[in-house]
C-alpha cells in the first residue's frame, strides 16, 4: 500500500524537482557569478562555481562613491512599508463599505473601479507627474506613497474576503451597540489578519520593485529607491562589471526573500480566503 502511494506521488515529485531545478539554477548562477572576477565571468565554457570566490564585489559595492546602497535600501523598505500601510488604511474601509454596507451607487462605483484596472499604468504617468509637481511633492516620500494608495486590486481582494466573513459575527456586535466603525475595526479586521498579510506582501513587493515612477519623481541621490539605483549601477558600468551588478541585485533581493519566508504560510491561508481561489 505504501509503495503504491509512493508511485502515485512519483510524477508529482519528478515535475516539482525538474521545475525546482529550472527555477534554482539561474538563481545559483546569479550568486556564484557575483563572486567571480571580471575576467572569470567571460570564460567559456561558463562555470557554475568558482574555486576562488571574490568577495570584493560585495565590498566594492559599498565603497563605490556613486552608490548609496544603504540609503537606497532604507528608502525602498521605508517607502514600500509606508505605502502598504497607506493601502490598508485607505482601501480596507472602502472594501468594507463595498462588501457589507448598502448605499446608492454601490454597484456602479465598483464597476468603475474594476474598469480602471484595464487602463494601462502608463496612461496616468504624465498627468500624475505634473500633478505631484504642482503639489510640491517631488523628491519626497509622499510621492512614493500617496499617488498609488488608491489600489483597486486591494479593494477587490479585501471585498471578496470581507464578504465571506459570516454576518452573524457582526450581528452579535450590532446587538451590543457597536458602530459601523466598531464592527469594521473590532470584528472584521482582526478576522482578516491572514488576508491582510497576503495582500500586504503583494502590495509591498509591487512597490519595492517598481522602477519608472520613482525614477521620474525623485531627483536627488538621497531619495533614490534601490531599483532606480541598481538601474544606474547596471547602465553606468554596463557589461564591464557584471559581477558587481549581480552583487547589487542579490543585495536588493535579500530583504524581500526574508519577508516572504517569514510570512509564506499566512500568504497561502490569506490567498485561500480572499476568494482569489474562486470560493
Amino acid at each position: 500500500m505504501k509503495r503504491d502511494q509512493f508511485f502515485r506521488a512519483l510524477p508529482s515529485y519528478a515535475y516539482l524537482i525538474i521545475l525546482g531545478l529550472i527555477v534554482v539554477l539561474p538563481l545559483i548562477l546569479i550568486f556564484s557569478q557575483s563572486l567571480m572576477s571580471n575576467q572569470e565571468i567571460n570564460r567559456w565554457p561558463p562555470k557554475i562555481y568558482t574555486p576562488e570566490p571574490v568577495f570584493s564585489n560585495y565590498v566594492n559595492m559599498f565603497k563605490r562613491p556613486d552608490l548609496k546602497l544603504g540609503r537606497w535600501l532604507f528608502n525602498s523598505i521605508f517607502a514600500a512599508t509606508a505605502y502598504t500601510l497607506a493601502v490598508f488604511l485607505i482601501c480596507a474601509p472602502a472594501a468594507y463599505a463595498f462588501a457589507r454596507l448598502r448605499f446608492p451607487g454601490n454597484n456602479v462605483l465598483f464597476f468603475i473601479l474594476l474598469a480602471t484596472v484595464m487602463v494601462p499604468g502608463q496612461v496616468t504617468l504624465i498627468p500624475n507627474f505634473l500633478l505631484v509637481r504642482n503639489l510640491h511633492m517631488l523628491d519626497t516620500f509622499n510621492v512614493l506613497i500617496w499617488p498609488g494608495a488608491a489600489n483597486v486590486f486591494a479593494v477587490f481582494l479585501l471585498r471578496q474576503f470581507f464578504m465571506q466573513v459570516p454576518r452573524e459575527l457582526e450581528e452579535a456586535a450590532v446587538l451590543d451597540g457597536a458602530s459601523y466603525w466598531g464592527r469594521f475595526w473590532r470584528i472584521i479586521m482582526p478576522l482578516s489578519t491572514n488576508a491582510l498579510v497576503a495582500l500586504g506582501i503583494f502590495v509591498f513587493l509591487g512597490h519595492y520593485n517598481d522602477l519608472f515612477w520613482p525614477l521620474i519623481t525623485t531627483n536627488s541621490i538621497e531619495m533614490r529607491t534601490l531599483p532606480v539605483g541598481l538601474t544606474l549601477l547596471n547602465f553606468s558600468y554596463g557589461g564591464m562589471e557584471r559581477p558587481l551588478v549581480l552583487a547589487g541585485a542579490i543585495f536588493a533581493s535579500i530583504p524581500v526573500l526574508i519577508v516572504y519566508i517569514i510570512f509564506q504560510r499566512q500568504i497561502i491561508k490569506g490567498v485561500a480566503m480572499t476568494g482569489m481561489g474562486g470560493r
Partner: protein
Amino acid sequence: MSKLKAIKYIFSLVLLVFFAQSMAQDAPEPVVTDFGTGGTLISFWNGLSGSDGVTLNEMLGKFVEETPGVSVRTEIIDWGTLYPKLQTAFVAGEPPDVFIVHASEVAQFQSYGMLKDLSYLYDTNGGTLPSADFAQPGFNGVFVDGVPYGVPLDNHGRGTWANVGLFEAAGIEPHIPNNFDDLVAMLQQLTLDVNGNNAASADFDAANVAQWGTCMEWIYTDFESYLWQFGGSIISEDGKTATVNSEAAISALQRMHDLIYKYHVSPEPAGFDSWQSWAGGKVALVPTGTWFRNFAEDQTDIKGQALPAMQVGPNPGTWFGSHVFMIPAGLEGEKLAAVEKMILWVTDHQAMWAGSGQVPARISVQESLDPALYPSNITIGKTFQEYGHLEVVSKAILELQAALDPELGSALNNQKSIEDALNDANKRMQQVLDRNQ
C-alpha cells in the same frame, strides 16, 4: 509563526540596514559622488558611463581640490534614461545646474528654450574660451543660428580595434585597406572555421566559424560612416528631406550585408556580443568607438591596436559625435559662477579626459598628447579632422535615429530586404521631418 519570531526577523532586518550603512561610511576612499564639501554645491548630470564616468570623476575630484568654495555632485544616468529625466526635471523646475548631452541634440533642447546662450564665455564675445582652438567640424555642432549653446568636451567616434595576435597569426600587418575588395580579402584571411580553414579557401565551413574577421557593433553609426563614404547622408542638407533610400544608402547597407552573408567574414549581428567576443579572442577587427580604449586595455591577455574606421565605400569617412556641456537657461548667481568655473577648469584640463579614450575637443590638447600613452586617441582623433562627419544636427535627431536604427537591424538580420528596410525607414523619417518643419 509567533510574534516573537517575527519581531526577531524584523530586528535583524533593521540591523542589516545599519550594517549596510556603516559599511558605506567606513569605506576608506572618499565617499559619494559629492566632490568637495561646503561652498556652492552644483549638480551635474551626464550619461558618461563606464570608463568615461571614472575619468570624469577623477577630474572633478581634482577640480574641487583646486577650487575652494565649489563642490560638485555628479549623477551618471544612462542616455536612454537621461532624456526622460531631463525633461521631467526641467518641467519640475529642478533641472541640474549643468549637464552634458551630444552636440547633435543641442538644436532639439534649444528649441524648447532650455539652454543658456553661452557666447559670453568665448573669446569672440569677451570671454576666455579660445574659439579657434576647438576642433572642427565638431565645434559647429554647438551653434544654433550662430549662437553657441554649449562648450564641447570631446569628439568621440568610430574607429576599429585590431587583435594584433590574430593578425600576426594570419601574417597580416594590422591596417585598414583603402578599398572594399582589399578589405574583404583581408577579413577573409582573418576568418577561420573550426578546422582552421580561412574564409577564402574552398573548404571553408561557413556554418562552423571559430574566429571572425569582423563583426557588427553599433550598426547605426557605422552605416552612417559608410553612407558618407558613398557620398550620401541620412537627410538632405536643408534638413527637410529624408534621403536614406538613396543609391548611396543602398550600396552602403548592401556591403555591410555582404560582409555577413556573401563573404561570411562577420556573424549575424543579433545575439552576437561584440565586446565579449573581442575579449574572448574571437574577432580580429572589431568596429567600435574611441570609448573602447580602456576596455581593450583591461583585457591584458590580448594585444589591441586602434585603427581608423573601415573603408567600405570609395572615399574615407567616419562618424563622430561630441559631448557638450550645457547650462539651463534659468541659472543665475552663485551657482552660475560655480558652473562657469567648472566648465572653464575642465576645458583647461581636457588632457586628463583623454584617459577615457575620447578625443579632447581642443586642437592644442590633441596635439600635446603623448603618442606612447594615447595611441588610440591620436590615431582615431586624426581621422575626425581629416574626413570625419559630425552626427547630423536636427531638431528631431533622436526621433530620426529611432526611425532608422531598427530598420538597419532588420535588413542585416535578414528580416527585410535592404530596399524595403530603407524605404520604410525613409518614410518614417520623412514623417518626422514634416512634423518638425
